[in-house]
């Protein structure tokens, strides 16, 4: 592993100034599960690493307006088991526990999960062409083994999937990120944070240089909503999604009053299927409506040589997640 300078920040201001105080390439570290992995592979090459773990960002609290504010450093394990999450946002708990392993969830943080990098093997291999790692070098995944790659939100420059499960739940639930940087504090909608690859796959998110995420605030829970996170993968545990679906539905007299649908494993960013959500609203909560929604959600799917199987797989994930969430809503 390459060497780097290291400092531990005691507060947000220290973290920001440590990051910007010279021109060296700097990285923040929290859980370290992405950064250290990628430094060992020589994919990330920070000259300075700033430890954020002493920052006071480890609280989960319910705000007066009913939203849930999560500190950036809350671990994936603690968030998944937090009583306010299991009671009001079981979808988030389910998605978190579907991701990674016990050890990694103990280490990984909420903001770090949002910032994790793709698992595309060409991104992780410095001998391969990758526009995300080395802008302008090309994309070996396009004509390569792209079985794990994305169907939605791709470009001719990048087809890498966003690997997170937690983020799929957040895309469905709705959330706001609080960012802090040299110019102060600002907020951004979760859905606007991750960028599509387009012609600059190296630009993955809307953080300005030296900015960091301090909080994630979930929208108020859907009243009377049932939810389900369904993850389909090559093995039963500790594997990234081939396709996943996060659903929240509220049903009244057999009619869908509110629907949230987001997809994982098939898109270049956590994928909120907004048109499908709109199509579900006001429709009867039954299979025909779900099939129509799945069709709309995947209408723009662009399969490559090895990942066409993901289209019917994602469709089934959507149908089953909608069925399960509807059952949960009916029983609530």
């Amino acid at each position, binding site marked *: 592993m390459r060497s780097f300078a290291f400092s531990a920040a*005691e507060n947000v201001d220290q973290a920001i100034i440590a990051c910007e105080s010279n021109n060296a390439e700097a990285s923040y570290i929290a859980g370290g599960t992405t950064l250290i992995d990628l430094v060992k592979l020589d994919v990330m090459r920070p000259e300075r690493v700033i430890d954020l773990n002493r920052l006071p960002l480890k609280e989960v609290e319910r705000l007066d307006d009913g939203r849930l504010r999560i500190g950036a450093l809350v671990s994936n394990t603690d968030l998944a088991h937090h009583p306010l999450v299991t009671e009001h946002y079981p979808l988030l708990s389910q998605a978190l526990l579907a991701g990674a392993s016990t050890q990694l969830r103990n280490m990984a943080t909420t903001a770090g999960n949002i910032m994790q990098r793709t698992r595309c093997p060409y991104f992780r291999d410095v001998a391969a062409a990758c526009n995300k790692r080395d802008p302008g070098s090309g994309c070996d995944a396009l004509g390569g083994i792209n079985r794990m790659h994305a169907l939605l939100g791709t470009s001719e420059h990048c087809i890498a999937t966003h690997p997170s499960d937690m983020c799929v739940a957040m895309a469905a639930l709705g959330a706001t990120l609080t960012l802090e940087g040299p110019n102060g504090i600002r907020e951004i909608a979760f859905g606007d944070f991750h960028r599509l690859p387009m012609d600059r796959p190296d630009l993955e998110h809307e953080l300005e240089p030296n900015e960091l995420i301090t909080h994630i605030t979930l929208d108020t829970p859907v009243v009377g909503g049932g939810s389900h996170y369904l993850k389909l993968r090559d093995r039963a545990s500790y594997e990234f999604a081939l396709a996943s679906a996060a659903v929240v539905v509220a049903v009244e007299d057999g009619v869908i009053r509110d629907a949230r649908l987001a997809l994982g494993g098939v898109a270049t960013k956590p994928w909120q299927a907004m048109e499908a959500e709109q199509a579900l609203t006001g429709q009867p909560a039954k299979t025909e409506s779900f099939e129509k929604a799945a069709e709309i959600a995947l209408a723009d799917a662009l399969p490559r040589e090895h990942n066409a199987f993901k289209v019917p797989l994602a469709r089934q994930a959507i149908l089953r997640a909608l069925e399960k969430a509807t059952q949960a809503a009916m029983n609530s």
Partner: protein
Amino acid sequence: MNMKEYSTQTKAVETETTVTLTVNGEPRQLRIPPNVVLLDALRDRLGLTGTKKGCDHGQCGACTVHIDGQAINSCLTLAVMCEGREVTTIEGLASDAGLHPVQQAFLENDAYQCGFCTPGQMMSASAMLEDERIGTDDAAVREAMSGNICRCGAYKNILAAIQTARGQMPTARKEGEVS
């Protein structure tokens, strides 16, 4: 121009620094550069070679140790970030009274073949059995242990050993108990 008022700046470590941590109950000091991971610090600098290096990327679990009682991958943890923390390795699992119930149960259930993954399996299992948030049935145990790969495929006996140990540990929740 910087808009913020900054009180103090952090001091960056460029070459080597001293880290003080507790390993298996003993205070230890390390003089290390910032890019040394806990796994290498334990094995190469403290001579604690029970913790194994498998994949070195957080995928196999052979390097699992406890930090402040939680199972983590020591291959993805910078030693410099362990200042003031309590680290427990496989060498610290047994007590003067004898083997830890998980170690005894692995022995009795023949829960290994080559043994390379065993320290990591035991560290994950011992943390899991003390964690009341994790279910007690076989499916919950297999899910909670999925970060520990056994290349020999001794999973059946590993599971049996863990459930045997559960019965021997006063602090572990028993099968069928709900939280």
